[in-house]
């Protein structure tokens, strides 16, 4: 049962694809095209998510500006009504360096509490959901992505993609760099931290770096930073492997239209939506998923929904 929880069942032999009679559009009495486009204008989850993201980031800003003391600090490290929260990748670098210098013993109890609180919180709420529900850079990148997709559609630029595992090269690489240089190297390039700090403490020169990354995403590679670089996302992806909150896929409601893959930040995690690819009646989307809900919004058959993994076996 536990192995079921962690496995994505990719290696099993696929189920037989559905016949035309079994397809959801036939059952609904619509043409495939009408059925497919029926939820294209639905943006419910996205709007909720944007509201949460903007609220949380503005809470940081106004906590400081208006001295509200609700959510102090920045995304690198903060305090929510007195409880510390630490960015895990930042902490990981710090731990890696300080284990070589003996500084480890200096770290305060607040640091450890903050690190474990946030790890447990996002372990419950999906790991990489941090990206789409909290990260201010993700919000900017979503707009850049729209422009990028438009340019690709108009054939102004060619789509370029890289290997999805590169994030882990960066994750390990920046950790090593931190230890070698005794400096939080990544923090100087961390677009998430730069945007967060620019909002709270005022803009800095490093916003130019953020701009460069955004331009790269617009003109070269779709969601380059989030997909291939960001070690913070990679850390959350590791945390999310065990998370119970996930997007659930039900094969019997799927019409193989692939609308979900088109909007997805990590389409490789939706490998089972292709005709003849699913190996089980129910799949849970893997840990790279940011639980952003774009696929939930767009799925015409409601085959993709938010769910709690393992809940059915517990009840």
């Amino acid at each position: 049962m536990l192995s079921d929880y962690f496995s994505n069942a990719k290696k099993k032999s696929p189920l037989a694809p559905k016949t035309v009679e079994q397809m959801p559009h036939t059952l609904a009495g619509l043409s495939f095209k009408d059925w497919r486009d029926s939820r294209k204008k639905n943006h419910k989850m996205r709007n909720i998510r944007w509201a949460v993201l903007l609220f949380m980031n503005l809470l940081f800003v106004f906590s400081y500006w208006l001295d509200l003391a609700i959510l102090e600090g920045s995304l690198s490290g903060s305090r929510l009504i007195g409880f510390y929260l630490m960015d895990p990748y930042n902490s990981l670098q710090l731990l890696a360096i300080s284990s070589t210098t003996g500084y480890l013993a200096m770290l305060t109890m607040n640091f450890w509490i903050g690190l474990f609180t946030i790890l447990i919180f996002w372990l419950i709420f999906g790991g990489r959901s941090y990206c789409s529900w909290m990260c201010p850079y993700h919000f900017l990148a979503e707009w850049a992505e729209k422009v990028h997709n438009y340019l690709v559609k108009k054939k102004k630029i060619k789509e370029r993609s890289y290997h999805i595992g590169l994030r882990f090269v960066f994750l390990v690489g920046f950790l090593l760099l931190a230890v070698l240089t005794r400096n939080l190297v990544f923090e100087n390039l961390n677009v998430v931290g730069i945007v967060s700090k620019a909002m709270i403490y005022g803009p800095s020169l490093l916003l130019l770096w953020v701009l460069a990354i955004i331009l790269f995403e617009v003109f070269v590679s779709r969601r380059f930073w989030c997909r291939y670089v960001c070690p913070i996302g990679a850390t959350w992806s590791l945390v999310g492997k065990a998370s119970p909150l996930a997007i659930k896929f039900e094969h019997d409601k799927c019409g193989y239209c692939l609308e979900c893959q088109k909007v997805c930040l990590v389409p490789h995690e939706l490998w089972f939506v292709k005709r003849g690819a699913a190996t089980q009646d129910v799949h849970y989307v893997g840990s790279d998923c940011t639980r952003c809900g774009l696929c939930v919004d767009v799925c015409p058959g409601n085959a993709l929904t938010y769910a709690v993994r393992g809940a059915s076996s517990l009840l």
Partner: protein
Amino acid sequence: MDKEKKNLNRREFFKGGIAAAGTLAVVGTATFILDKSAAKSMPREDFLRPPGAISEEDFLYGCIKCGLCVQICPVHAIELAGAGEGLGFGTPYIAPRIQACDFSCDALQCVETCPTAVLDFRPFKEEGVRAVEKAATEPGADLSTVNPFEVQKVAMKEAVRMGKAHVNRNTCLAHKGEGFKGNPRGTDFKGVHRSPGKNEVSASPLKDRIFDREVCDLCITECPIGEKAIIQRRSRSGRKLIPHVLDGCTGCGVCQMVCPTAQPSIVVEPF
């Protein structure tokens, strides 16, 4: 077919991996060099690390740049360094001429709030406890009148060592035998401080204060530490009354902020 795809996939990963490793190597070396050169050319007299800061070498990686110390400071003395200032992007510093640390938070809150202890609270805590114990055991100490909180506060404050103030004899008004009358930093100066002489609860703007001194002694009267840090004494010739900095100086920089000369005649030099 599947195997071919897998190989292609692997090739792509290695290609990307090498590119990523190359980028990292460049970035890493660049940061390393910039960091070393910046540390050398650091304008040390222009900034102070906040109270309790550990050695600069450890500070640079220990500080996670969250800015909690910035947010908690009631007088907004702490700022985060921008890129290219040579301090490590995002690390906190105090520019005392603009806004000094005047201890009006009373309990070193920036130090207490720091989660990674690059502003290390432990020595202050120990100092506070020691002072309370000492006050309680002093002969003739009346425990009902000793306020441990007050004793602790003062002891912790006095244990701060951000730097030490140095007087420039050539420009100091007292050294020239001059007095000072008026507003030391002009009416549009934004800095605030809690003057020890006025018994205030919180800091008030310096621009609202008018001084009238026969011999300028602002650095002495406004010092939040008092006679353990700076005193007025006679010059060797005996003709002038000049400020004299003692080892009790915490380097808070209030003297530097209130000094009325165009360039401050008393400057804190960090340790």
